[in-house]
């Protein structure tokens, strides 16, 4: 589904990602953890080329994306993304936030897009908020709308960039619940998070990143139970 090949990313002189290699299978839920500044968000953003890749390659279903011939807009339709700061469109209602891309990008009919949107609103438990503008929603509600917006394009992969980090603690649960449902439905997910509980319960595989490299990876049980690397142990001891 996703293949990352010797991925490097520099910001000026700063090497943020150094030789990242990985493969993510269809239906897999991969959780990326690590200290801040370790490059985990940058790596995630390279997967739909929101960050330009310095060198190396990322394949989405076999299509290389670091490539001028590839239409990145088409790739992005298959790869949904959820942001830490929600980034809902403030001048659009919840419903419009969800229908906009299907209508404008996929050229879907207005009615069909609305139908899909209502189903998604139902799924994230916010059917009654369809005609409300984002500024009238709580953080947790905003993030659930943002998930619905990404799902409206019927993506095959979902990327989550610290989706609960900007939320008040009491709203983290409702967002994680939506994500858990999504994982159970078999969505391929890459999740950058500090929610170790979620990583342990929902993750199929955990990647621990530090200083721009994947230091260790494995099933959650192994990473949290018996980490092999010193840096992993050190990190986990600080946060658990």
């Amino acid at each position, binding site marked *: 589904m996703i293949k990352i090949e010797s991925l490097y990313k520099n910001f000026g002189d700063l090497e943020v990602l150094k030789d990242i290699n990985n493969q993510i299978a269809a239906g897999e839920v991969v959780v990326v953890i690590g200290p801040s500044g370790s490059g985990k968000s940058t790596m995630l953003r390279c997967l*739909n080329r929101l960050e330009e890749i310095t060198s190396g390659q990322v394949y989405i279903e076999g299509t290389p994306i670091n490539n001028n011939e590839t239409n990145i807009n088409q790739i*992005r339709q298959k790869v949904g993304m959820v*942001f830490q700061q929600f980034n809902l469109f*403030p*001048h659009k209602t919840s419903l419009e936030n969800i229908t906009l891309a299907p209508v404008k990008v996929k050229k879907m009919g207005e009615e069909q897009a609305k139908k899909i949107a209502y189903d998604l609103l139902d799924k994230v438990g916010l059917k009654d908020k369809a005609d409300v503008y984002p500024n009238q929603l709580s953080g947790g509600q905003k993030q659930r709308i943002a998930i619905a917006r990404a799902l409206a394009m019927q993506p095959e992969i979902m990327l989550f960039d610290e989706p609960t980090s900007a939320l008040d603690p009491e709203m983290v649960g409702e967002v994680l619940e939506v994500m858990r449902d999504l994982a159970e439905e078999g969505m391929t997910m890459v999740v950058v998070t500090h929610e170790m509980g979620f990583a342990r319960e929902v993750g199929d595989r955990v990647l621990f990143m530090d200083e721009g490299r994947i230091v260790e990876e494995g099933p959650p049980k192994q990473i949290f139970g018996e980490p092999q690397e010193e840096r992993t142990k050190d990190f986990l001891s600080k946060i658990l």
Partner: protein
Amino acid sequence: MSVSYKRKDVEYLLGFLDAVNWQEIYLSLAEAMPFLLKGSLMTIKITTISVGVGIVLGVLIGLARVSNNKIVGGIAKGYIEIFRGTPLLVQLFILYYGLPSLGLNLTPYFAAVLGLGLNSGAYVGEIVRGGIESIDVGQMEAARSVGMSYGQAMRYIILPQAVKRIIPALGNEFIALLKDSSLVSVIAVKDLTRQGRLIISRTYQSFLIFLAVAFFYFVMVFIMTRIVNYTERKLKVSD
């Protein structure tokens, strides 16, 4: 404030008011009115078209300024530098008196609209750029992440939000443009200012007529300000 009026002063003032021939003023104004109204219409016409030209140009220039293409951005920057760096009056002179020596004769009206529009485009361009840059980068990222092209993201997500923020600045710009349009009177356009001067050249009542001209401008600006405020309030509703 304790100002003590001396009797002498009061008498002087009353004498001055007595000396004013109110009937004559009334007659001159009545006579001037059709010309001033005609001039006002011309001023409104020129300003409206120039505002249109300014908006279209300004949006293009603003978009060019924020584009990643260095050449496009550079051209836009150069344009702004030139039109902001030289006086509007000189720009009008070049268009109307300068171009004919190259074989290009513009009508006064066309030269006026072109000059004001080109000039306004530079200022609006900077306002639009500021508006676009004030929108959080997350908005562009979210739009791109669902597969929108750069152009779609600009059109559906960035510009609608930017427009709301720049309405007050745009309003100021257009009020300034309305007043600056009085400069076109020197290239033979019969706008409000020129009509005033034409009347004065016949009647020599500079003070009265220029006061009337100022009053007409004031009324137009007053109305325009209300329109800007109204638009601003209307657009705020969805925030």
